[in-house]
Every structure is written in structure tokens, then in C-alpha cells.
């Protein structure tokens, strides 16, 4: 299983010139993201909405992996947020924006409770334990038709309320509008996740991953920090669940099954987890290949096969994930630039 590396120092971004370059890059990225939906077809806008939600899911998952633990229950935790938000809006009439926030809190609370049994385990034991915990939650959704809707789940979930101020009218049924809503929420969430990783807490997460005994010996409460990572990651997974539930309008236990979790793992593994952008790269590239390129080529039934082949090839030839392509490319270009001189030197 790939292991998250220590966060890069980011020294280049630290200098004033570096900061300007980074700001320009972000401005460019946001400009592209703002224009993007207008370049897409209607159904591709729908895919873009789900993609943005999945970016938050996989990024929140990465935060958990920083402490060295890989969970198989993250999608179920997303489901906790989705179910909580849907039920609050549907049954209690809580306004959707608040229900989504409370859904995130419910997911975080569930993680806090689960952390007591789960963090008594490590490594593969934690992996299996998280799977079992997730299955228990899914079985509860199935068993209790009231309020969870049983195997069929919940449908006709309240949509995000439209905005109509007379001069401004936004209908969130339209994927382009929901895309921007999701983009704003996900961008804020990613910023928070990024800041956490770069903070003292984030560095402690890394320390626990690499040297948990050493961290404990200098007074770090590893249980608390692992729990903290799990709770924060779960909060954002819950928010992703809320975004999903109020967009699609239905949730059911199958949607949050282990099949979906495998996708999250594949996105993280193919993208790489050493950098913040690695899993994001993974989910974007694989979604575009799976949902747009392969469907466009009429290879619907061959998609699982091709998807599997991509996973195998990436593990074989890109063990550090897609995120390693950039540095490799830069190194290759540098070698090319230096090539003749080096060759000359060597000849001399």
C-alpha cells in the first residue's frame, strides 16, 4: 500500500516572488474552473458536479492516511453525512445548508465514537476493523426502514434551495449552478484541509505515521491525534455526502458499499498520496477517462476491464502515482537541457 510522504517544504512558495507565482497559478486555476462548465455539454456538467464532490471525498481521505492508517469505511462515513443531512431536511424541515453542515458534524461524531475501538488497532487490523464498522452502519441503514428507508434508502430528498431575489435567480437543479455551489464549498474545504496539513497538527500527523513510538516518547498523544485526523476527515466526507444527497435526490446503502470505497482507494493510489494534489489528480484523470473518454469511444462494457488495466499499469510503472509525473518530467527536461554539456564533460 502506498505511504504518504512527509509534506514538501514549500520553500519556493515562501519567497515573495514564489508567492506571486503561486497566486498567479491559483488565479489561473480558478479562471479555468470558472470557464470549464461552459465548455462542457449538459451531461458532462453533471459529471463535473459529481467529480467536484469526489475531489472532496478523496482529499478528506488523504488527511486520514497522513497518520498512516488506511480505512475501508470512508465512503460509509460519507453516507452518514448524506443520510443525516437528508433526514434532517426531509423529516425535520431543517434548511438544506444547515442540514449539510450538521450532516458533516454527525459524520465527525460517528468517527469520534468509532475511534475508540478502531484506534486500538493499527495497519491491516485497522483496515479490516474500519471495514467491519462501515458494514455495521450499512446494515443499520438496511435493517431500520424507519427512518433510513431500508434497502431502498431515501428518495425525494429536498434539493438545495433555489435563490430568487428578483434580480438574481439561481436554480440548483441546473448542473452548472450546482457545480459552482459545490466548487465553492469544496474549495473552502480543501483550503482548510491544506492549512491543517501544513500546521503543527499536520506535521504531528506525519510524525505519527513515520515514527509513532518516537512521537509518543516526546509526549505526543498518538491516539488523540489519530482520532483528530479521523474526525476532521470524516467531517469533510460528511459534507461531500450532503452535497451528493441533495443533488441526486436519493441515497441507499448500496451507494456507500465497499465497491465505492474501492474507487476511492484506486483514485488515491493512482494519483498518489505524497502530495496534497495527488489524489485530486487521480480522481480527475480516472473520472475523465472512465466517464468521458471511454464512454465517448463506445466502450461502455469494457470500462471495468480498462479501468483495472490502468490500475495495474500505474502500480507497475508509476508506483508513486500520477503526482510523480511532474517531478519526473522536470528532471527529464533538466537532463535534456544539460545533456550536451554533460556528454561533453563525460567525453573530456
Amino acid at each position, binding site marked *: 500500500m502506498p505511504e504518504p510522504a512527509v509534506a514538501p517544504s514549500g520553500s519556493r512558495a515562501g519567497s515573495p516572488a514564489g508567492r506571486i507565482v503561486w497566486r498567479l497559478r491559483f488565479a489561473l486555476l480558478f479562471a479555468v474552473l470558472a470557464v470549464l462548465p461552459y465548455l462542457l*455539454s449538459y451531461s458532462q456538467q453533471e459529471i463535473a458536479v459529481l467529480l467536484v464532490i469526489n475531489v472532496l471525498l478523496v482529499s478528506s481521505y488523504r488527511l486520514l492516511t497522513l497518520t498512516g492508517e488506511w480505512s475501508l469505511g470512508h465512503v460509509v462515513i460519507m453516507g452518514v453525512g448524506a443520510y443525516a443531512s437528508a433526514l434532517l431536511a426531509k423529516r425535520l424541515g431543517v434548511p438544506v445548508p444547515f442540514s449539510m453542515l450538521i450532516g458533516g458534524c454527525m459524520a465527525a461524531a460517528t468517527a469520534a465514537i468509532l475511534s475508540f475501538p478502531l484506534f486500538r488497532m493499527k495497519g491491516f487490523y485497522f483496515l479490516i476493523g474500519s471495514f467491519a464498522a462501515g458494514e455495521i452502519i450499512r446494515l443499520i441503514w438496511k435493517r431500520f426502514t424507519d427512518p433510513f428507508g431500508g434497502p431502498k434508502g431515501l428518495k425525494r430528498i429536498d434539493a438545495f434551495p433555489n435563490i430568487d431575489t428578483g434580480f438574481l435567480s439561481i436554480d440548483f437543479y441546473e448542473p452548472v449552478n450546482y457545480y459552482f455551489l459545490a466548487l465553492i464549498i469544496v474549495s473552502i474545504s480543501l483550503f482548510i484541509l491544506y492549512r491543517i496539513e501544513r500546521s503543527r497538527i499536520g506535521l504531528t500527523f506525519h510524525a505519527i505515521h513515520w515514527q509513532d513510538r518516537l512521537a509518543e516518547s516526546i509526549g505526543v498523544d498518538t491516539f488523540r491525534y489519530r482520532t483528530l485526523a479521523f474526525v476532521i476527515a470524516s467531517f469533510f466526507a460528511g459534507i461531500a455526502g450532503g452535497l451528493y444527497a441533495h443533488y441526486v435526490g*436519493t441515497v441507499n446503502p448500496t451507494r456507500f458499499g465497499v465497491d465505492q470505497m474501492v474507487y476511492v482507494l484506486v483514485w488515491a493510489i493512482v494519483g498518489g498520496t505524497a502530495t496534497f494534489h495527488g489524489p485530486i489528480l487521480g480522481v480527475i484523470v480516472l473520472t475523465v477517462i472512465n466517464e468521458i473518454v471511454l464512454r465517448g469511444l463506445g466502450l461502455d*462494457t469494457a470500462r471495468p476491464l480498462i479501468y483495472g488495466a490502468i490500475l495495474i499499469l500505474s502500480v507497475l510503472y508509476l508506483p508513486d502515482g500520477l503526482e510523480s509525473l511532474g517531478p519526473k518530467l522536470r528532471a527529464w527536461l533538466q537532463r535534456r537541457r544539460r545533456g550536451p554539456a554533460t556528454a561533453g564533460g563525460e567525453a573530456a
Partner: protein
Amino acid sequence: MRKTLDRKLSRRKFLGTTAASGAALAATGTGLSRVSFAAGHTIKIGFLAPFTGPVAAWGKPGYDGCLIWADWVNAKGGVKIGDKSYRIEFVGYDNEYDAGKAKTGATKLIKEDGVKFIMMLGGDTWPGVEKIAEREGMLFSTLLPSDLSPDTKTLVAPCEVHPIYNVTGVEWLAENKKNLKTAAICAQDDALGKPSVATYLAAFEAAGIKMVDAPLFFDPATTDFAPVMTKLLAKKPDILCLDTCYADYVHPLCEQAFQQGYKGQIISCTADFYQVIVEKTSKDFMEGFVFQFPDFDDPALNAKEVNFVNPNEFYAEYSKRYGAKEWSAVSWEYASIMDLWADAAGKAGSADPGPVLKAMKAGGTGKHAFGDAKWWGKELFGIDNALVGNWPVVVIEGGKAKIKAFKSIPAWWAKHSKLMIKHMTALGQMWNQR
């Protein structure tokens, strides 16, 4: 250095060729559809079902059947609507049995492909599409009428009224094998399994057959069926009922029953790819296996009451194109819905969803694949959008499926509707409980 250069060039060549091929493929695809549209005599029909994943057996074979239907209809000049004849083109979208992907697929089919009608498997995927259907007024069909409710006005179940037809198998069994007195049932714990269990419980009760135990619901993620079968057989039932299990479950369940020495009666809603089960078990073991979906080479389907056009030829063509072992419960179903749609469009003089729906339901009756039927369902689904009539009872004899009888669902309903409502209510499957 030279080696590096060679490698570089070959990579460039490779990338260039790949990109060119991709572009050519994409251009060919879009180009063809544009030509079709330009002709102005093509009607597109959407097919939104799982082509991959565990439920693919109830999506992909149906799409394959539709392609045969389209080829035959187009070869005869297309569907006549008003003064013109229209070529039919199917546009498929694999929804992977996921509501989110079904939503995207429905959007694409309606907004980009301009389809006039969308056929779905339904189930978990319908709630993702419901709002689009309502907003766009698009006509949808489902194979699972448990999707129906008073709010789903543009959704019809014109072929398979799952799971209500399962009563016919139990009724036939009770009439023909009077020594069978007890039964045990299992199903996957999902939206397909539960209403089907309620139906079987009602049918067994109506037939005077007692359940030896409460229904056994297993998780859809189950892969080891040995303990499931051990528990089912523990109380020695006369009948083993496999409910509406997916093909991925029916096969291992049968293998387990065989390995654990079960020799009694088996009844199931489906037995997709049953030849494989016969190969894995034995002809003797599968002898007398009762289910609900015939092979269409059955001579009984040539009866004059049957409305499906050329069933034997359809089966032969299907077997020729895809192989006889690829025939599944749904291979003919979507095609039979198309017969009904084409008939309604012809009567309406329009392919638009509203007029077609009106023509389809005119007079409260319709031509179902297995005979004339009536639009029904108010008591069970809250809306009369399910077409119900006769349904075949199929039995495996000598390793081959044979229709033993066509039995009337409305006749059973007239006698036992209260039982059905009782069991549906107990499992929370009535439309107002869902």
C-alpha cells in the same frame, strides 16, 4: 544517444498514431449520428440500464435484444407514425445501477441525444431520474413496478410486473405437486428482494404451503453461500425458494444446494444462464426447477394469444448473434416494450412522450407480450401504470426450459389481493410506505 533518439521517435509515432486514431474514432461516431439526424426520419430511443456490475445481467441482454428489434423493424421500413416511416435507433447508457450515473445518463439521453422514450431497469436508479422525468415530461418504462407511485405519472411498467407474476409459479406448483407442504425462502436484502419475498409469502399462504422459517435475507455483498444454504435446508423444507436473486446469487445458491445434497423442489423468479447451472450441478438436480422466464424458442409462444412478434425467430437470431447461453430473463422484455411503444406511437400519430402515453393507456387495456392485458396497480402502486395479464410458468425438463402453463395474474389477484397487501405492508413495500 542514437538509441535514445530512436526510442523518442517511436514514442512520438505511437502517441501521434494513438491520438489520430482516437480523433478518427470520435469523428466517425459523431459524424454518423449527424448524418442520421440530417435525414430527419430517425427516432432515438434511450436505453438506461446497467451494462456492467452485478446487475448487468438485467440490462445488457435487454439492450442486445433491442438491437435485433431495431434491425428487424428498420429492415421492414421502420415504424410508421402519421404519414412517415421512421428508422429506430437505440442510444444506450450504462448507469452501473447507480442513481447518480442514471441521473447523468437520463440528462444526456434527453438533452443531448433527443430521445423520445427511455427504457430503464428501474429499482435503485429510478429515484435519481424521477425529477428529470417530471421536469421534462419524458416517458420512461421500468421493469420494476415497485418504482411506481401516484407521483410517477410518466413512468410505466408495460412488460414485467415484478414481482407480482411470481404468484403464478407457486399457484402452478400447488396445483401440480400437491405433496409439497413446506417452503424456505432467501433473498438478497435490497429493493428487489423484499417485495419479491412479500409476494412469495402471499402466494405460499394462498396455496396452503407453510414456511418452515422466517425469510432469510442475506447481504448483497455475500460471496459465500454455504452458510446461507445450510440454514435454509436445516428445517428440511419441501420447497426451496430463491426469490428474485440476481444471477450471481442463483448460481452459487444452486451449487450449494447440490453440494449439500438437497433433492427437493426449487422455485425461483429467474434462472438466467440456467444451462451453466445444469453444467455445474446435474440434469437430475435441476429437473423440475420452476421459474418465470421462458426461452423464446418454446413452441408454446406461438399461441395466437401471444403478442410478441416472431418469438422463435427472435430467439434464434439472439442465439446466433450472442450465443444461446447469453439469453437472460430480460433479453426479450425491452423489445416487447418497444412493440407496445411502436403501436402506441402509430396510434398517436406522434412520437412525443405525452401523446404516446395517452395512446398506450387508451381504453385501459394493452397488448402485453403474453396476451392482452389491462392497466392496473392502483391498490398496490397507487397508480394504474402497470400492464398485467397472463404470465408463463417455466419448468426445466431434461436440462431445457419449457413453458408448462400461462396463468392469469388478475385472476389470482381477484382471489388473494388481501394476502398480498398484508405481506407487502408487513415488509414495508406498499407505495405509501416506500
